[in-house]
């Protein structure tokens, strides 16, 4: 029996190996996705994002405790950036996810975003599929908000949660700048600190302004993740939102949006890999650089003509 059957039969070790393979080995990745594709689509995918240090991991830990109490099987994906210099990464979210024992009903995986454009969804999508096929009821993705990742996560997740904390002055500014539209639920963590009530009020005001015409008004929930306070209400709202999606036609729309995004990603990454390979291997890259350097041609016209030439010549195997 191979890894995929072992995984489908409940082996975490096989699941763990498959994640590594799908991340690093394109051939294995294709085979994995092909074979698990029909066993997925049952998990509630939750994205949790927000500025550094607001308590996302602590909140995830508390949510896992609550979900486990409700008998749910939970998968967690914690994404941290890679160093642009060494490509290495210190993935530290697990430090604050110690409240629950790893067992067959809880699987946590740390991922490095590897600095790619659209890096978040590229590294995360396959892991979501694997956790889904493994039989997790809820899959939580934690990522640091950067202004861009919010949009990426909103496209991947059924429910997007934005975590803020009092005293995070810029948080509100960031929200006004547009991140707001991506949030289905807002958490004000560290409600034990000064300014929490003020932050909640501020966000409620902005949310109402933006969502006045929608059926779903994002709740703004004060939480003390460290003490498990407010988490029950939060998890209730997660379930409410999931039910809302299922009862309206939004679930289908979200799923199709996600498929669209995946298609675009596959196309981009396929073209990127093949064109770059072709140019590098055929030794043309140096020539192109030289031509542009000598101002014999401008970069855009030159690259376009090369790409057209390649496509016409069926340049890939």
């Amino acid at each position, binding site marked *: 029996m*191979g*890894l*995929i059957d072992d995984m489908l039969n409940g082996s*975490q*070790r096989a699941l*763990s*190996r498959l*994640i*590594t*393979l799908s*991340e*690093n*080995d394109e051939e*294995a990745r294709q*085979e*994995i996705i092909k*074979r698990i594709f029909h066993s997925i689509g049952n998990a509630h995918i939750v994205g949790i994002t927000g500025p550094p240090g607001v308590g996302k991991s602590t909140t995830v830990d508390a949510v896992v405790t609550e979900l486990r109490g409700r008998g749910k099987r939970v998968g967690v994906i914690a994404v941290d950036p*890679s*160093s642009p*210099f*060494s*490509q*290495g*990464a*210190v*993935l*530290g979210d*697990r*430090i*604050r996810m*110690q409240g629950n*024992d*790893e*067992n067959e009903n809880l*699987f*946590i*995986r*740390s991922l*490095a975003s590897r600095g790619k454009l659209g890096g978040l969804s590229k590294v995360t999508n396959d892991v979501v599929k694997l956790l889904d096929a493994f039989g997790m009821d809820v899959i939580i993705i934690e990522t640091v908000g950067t202004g861009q990742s919010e949009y990426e996560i909103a496209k991947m997740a059924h429910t997007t949660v934005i975590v803020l904390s009092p005293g995070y002055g810029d948080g509100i500014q960031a929200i006004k700048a547009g991140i707001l539209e991506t949030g289905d639920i807002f958490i004000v963590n560290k409600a034990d600190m000064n300014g929490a009530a003020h932050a909640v009020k501020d966000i409620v005001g902005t949310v109402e302004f933006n969502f006045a015409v929608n059926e779903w008004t994002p709740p703004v929930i004060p939480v003390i993740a460290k003490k498990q306070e407010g988490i029950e209400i939060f998890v209730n709202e997660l379930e409410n939102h999931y039910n809302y999606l299922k009862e309206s036609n939004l679930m289908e729309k979200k799923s199709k949006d996600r498929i669209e995004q995946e298609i675009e990603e596959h196309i981009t990454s396929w073209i990127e890999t093949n064109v770059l390979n072709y140019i590098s291997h055929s030794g043309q890259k140096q020539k192109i650089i030289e031509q542009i350097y000598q101002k014999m041609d401008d970069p855009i016209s030159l690259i376009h003509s090369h790409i057209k030439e390649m496509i016409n010549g069926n340049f890939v195997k």
Partner: protein
Amino acid sequence: MKRPLRVVVAKIGLDGHDRGAKVIAAGFRDAGFEVIYTGIRQTPKKVAAIANQEDADVIAVSILSGAHNKLCGKLMELLKEQQADDIVCLVGGIIPNRDIEYLKSIGYAGVFTPGSELGDIVNFVKEKTKDRNQEYSL
């Protein structure tokens, strides 16, 4: 398959000093590893479970409490149980010579005492993990 190697850096035991562990973690990161840092006060059971879920190539344990033989022994036992003793395991800490021999005899690839050079540790690990591209069948 060329890929970044994954290292779990874990502090096992009750002492709360993790400067050394953080230095090691940063060293591995700068050498291009993906480091899963677990924080302080871990149990062998927790570390074994984390290594399993993170598909660790390497586990670097830091122990300052003196209970290294017992705790490292337990961890190795658990790794064997879950058939994960192919993971390259290291221990760092204040460890007397006779215990170094013992730890190596139960399966620890390297034991590092204070004063070890970060670069040496990283190179040691690179060497030990050179052939870690296990075959697999899907």
